[in-house]
């Protein structure tokens, strides 16, 4: 029975000056706004590479970076949505493989139905999200374990469906490849789609009730209960939306590839998670933005491109990317610890 008396409290010993209080709050706010820090880092990175290799800053190369980053941006947004609820999705790579192989096979079979069939891979991705969401939100499985399982399941299904085969891009209607190569207002459609996804997802997270609930549940699941928020429904919806975006990414992946094979996008879940973490989304949930996740993806693409231009070996690139991830996680840990400390002082003033 946890019904206890609570004592008259020790009056707040640090009812400090308003100025100190305000300063502390500003600092907290700044720490929360880590997208800014990522943007700053990205600019420094670009200046660094440009100084070492003049080719880096060429319009052509910057366009290549953006193109390479575009799909990862979409996947990173999907991953971030789930991470903000204090969960993970390790199945995004497999979802891409399943949705692109099966989805594009449907397009191959019915070439005359037209671009409306883009909805097939998108729907397949959403379906994968439904499975993940059901397991995590309603089955109450730890998300790492559940999505580790579906990672194998989705990939296995893609292989089963493919039955040793592969899809040649040449067998697909021309509009599929056209998605990846055409431009609107001089900008690649891929980049435009990525920008649209970031804008829409930001709008959803920032301006809709469901979006704020996603943050609330990641911030303090216990409080969500006493607020009467339906945490399960919210986590489920976050997974479905993430699946939907991953399905979209699957289509874009396929549009860029000349061959579609079931082992497409292997390891994408880790790259996406890396982008999310570098982008300042807390792995402990409750904070982070879509813009941050997108900048994280852009940072990874920039790092990769710049290092290639500098002639760095594959191993060096892996090493440096790994280091970037570790540094990002350390920064996250420091910020989270400060937050926890603040919470603790908050609580200790009311021992209960």
């Amino acid at each position, binding site marked *: 029975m946890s019904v206890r008396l609570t004592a008259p409290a020790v009056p707040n010993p640090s009812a400090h000056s308003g100025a100190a209080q305000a300063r502390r709050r500003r600092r907290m706010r700044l720490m929360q706004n880590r997208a800014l820090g990522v943007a700053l880092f990205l600019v420094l990175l670009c200046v660094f590479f440009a100084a070492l290799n003049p080719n880096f800053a060429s319009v052509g190369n910057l366009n290549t970076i953006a193109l390479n980053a575009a799909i990862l941006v979409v996947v990173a947004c999907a991953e971030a949505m789930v991470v903000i609820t204090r969960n993970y999705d390790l199945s995004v790579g497999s979802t891409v493989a399943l949705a692109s192989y099966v989805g594009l096979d449907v397009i191959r079979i019915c070439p005359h139905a037209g671009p409306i069939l883009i909805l097939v891979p998108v729907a397949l991705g959403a379906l994968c999200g439904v499975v993940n969401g059901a397991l995590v939100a309603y089955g109450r499985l730890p998300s790492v374990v559940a999505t580790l399982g579906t990672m194998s399941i989705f990939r296995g299904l893609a292989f089963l469906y493919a039955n040793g085969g592969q899809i040649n891009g040449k067998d697909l209607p021309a509009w599929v490849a056209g998605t990846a190569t055409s431009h609107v207002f001089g900008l690649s459609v891929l980049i435009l789609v990525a920008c649209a996804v970031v804008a829409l997802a930001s709008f959803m997270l920032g301006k809709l009730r469901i979006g704020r609930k996603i943050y609330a549940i990641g*911030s303090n699941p216990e409080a969500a209960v006493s607020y009467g928020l339906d945490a399960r429904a919210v986590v489920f919806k976050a997974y479905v939306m993430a699946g939907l975006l991953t399905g979209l990414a699957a289509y874009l992946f396929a549009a860029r590839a000349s061959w579609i094979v079931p082992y497409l996008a292997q390891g994408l879940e880790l790259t996406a998670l890396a982008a999310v973490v570098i982008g300042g989304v807390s792995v402990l949930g409750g904070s982070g933005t879509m813009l941050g996740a997108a900048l994280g993806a852009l940072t990874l693409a920039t790092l990769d491109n710049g290092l290639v231009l500098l002639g760095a070996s594959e191993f060096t690139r892996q090493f440096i990317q790994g280091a970037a991830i570790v540094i990002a996680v350390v920064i996250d840990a420091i910020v989270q610890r400060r937050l926890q400390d603040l919470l603790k002082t908050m609580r200790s003033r009311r021992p209960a």
Partner: protein
Amino acid sequence: MSDRAATPRLALSGIVKSFGGIHALKGVSFDVRPGEIHALLGENGAGKSTLVKIVSGLQTADAGEIRLDGELVRFKTPMEAREAGVVAVYQDPKLFPHLDVAENIFMGVQPLDRLGTIDNRRMYRRARALLADLDADLDPTAMVAGLSIGEVQFVEFARAMAEGADRLLFLDEPTAALTPSETERLFRVVRRLRDKGTSIVFISHRLEELEGLVDTVTVLRDGAHVATQSAAALDETAVVKLMVGRSLDQLYPGEPDRSASGSPASPRGPERLRVENLGLRGTFDGISFSLHGGEIVAMAGLVGAGRSEIAQTIFGLTPPTTGSVFLDGDEVRITSPRQMLDLGLAYLPEDRDGEGLIPRLSILRNIVLPLMGRLGRFGVVAPQRERAIARTFATNLQIKAGNLEQAVATLSGGNRQKVVLGKWLAMNPGVLILDEPTHGIDVGTKAQVHRIARALAEKGLAILLISSDLPEVLRMGDRVIVIADGRMTGSFSRAEATQEKIMTAASQRGRKAAA
């Protein structure tokens, strides 16, 4: 129960709730009239918070009826209750630290514009208005993680107002974290709400502050309804009597009541522990007492008065900022629990699962864990020695288990408590601090723990018993010290101590806002 108004705002009848065999509420029935401030009083564990959670939809009753303005209701979630105009501010506020004040106030009920998106301008404007209404000097855009606990409480109040608590508002210990001026502000709001016709159910332990505020008083005791009376007809003494009024024999059947004898149960030995003017900044100060071998000193007080903090400071978890501690006459500069254990002082924490035990390990492993350093020879521990020690304590303490290899997680609360006790006793301490050793365990095991503690004292141990359970304090303590607000507010010999005296000392406001 008066029936001046035709239908009561809230009518409870026969509310029953139990948690794993422990009855938190045993058929509680009473009414709350429209537009009154109704105090809900009772000791620790009387069932007040459970009742609030049931009416507000956070928990559901096992049996019983709830009527709101005559209409039968059974809220399944706090959202449902909120829609019916019933809102609760729970005892310890739970907010979203990453989000700002306005977002916390309006989470889930944000004002929307025509397109169905959140209208931020309106939300922040309304948040500002609500906070101004509460006289709370708070920026709606401030992040909650940076707020003080008093400020957090005001965010909670603002939240309750935002939801339109127009029928029934529960405030569970709302003033516990507030300074007197903040409390005054809150009371103004509460009165204003009442005048608008909202009924307020107010839980508090500061009896003195209820005077002149509440209209009606309901007292619960051990999960049962004791009385509902007009506040004008009651004074503090009468309320305290209603809260504690029970005889010890009822609680511990078949055990002799020694508290009447007036003399220590075991011979008083040499002084083992002396604490002088001990303080921890912001938590407690000016604590002085001594413990002799063979005696049990009970430390009473309300939950949150700082008793556990004092014990943890003596044990070295949070070294003190002022004062000194003497063990067997020698002053000790406290640095760590390791050091205190080596000096023969052991602390049995209240949260035995969190701090005292490793639930997945066996009874044997748990008991010998702190001993590893001592049993080992060149780092290798002889299994027979471990087993022998564990068996001794398991037998002495009557731990009920199939064998010593059984995981601690599978044991009952009482038996887990005994394992923790065995673990520290294996260290052979001279001073033992027991923090709420019988909290949440059944009456039979409770009596057993009492016998064990007494037997240990008779063997010459000095025991400090922290307990919020008044009958336990009275029956076990050779002396009783009372802590309120991080200060000592009373010290009684066995002969002097009564439930009323302890309760009165415990509800004193130890320290004014000056600190």
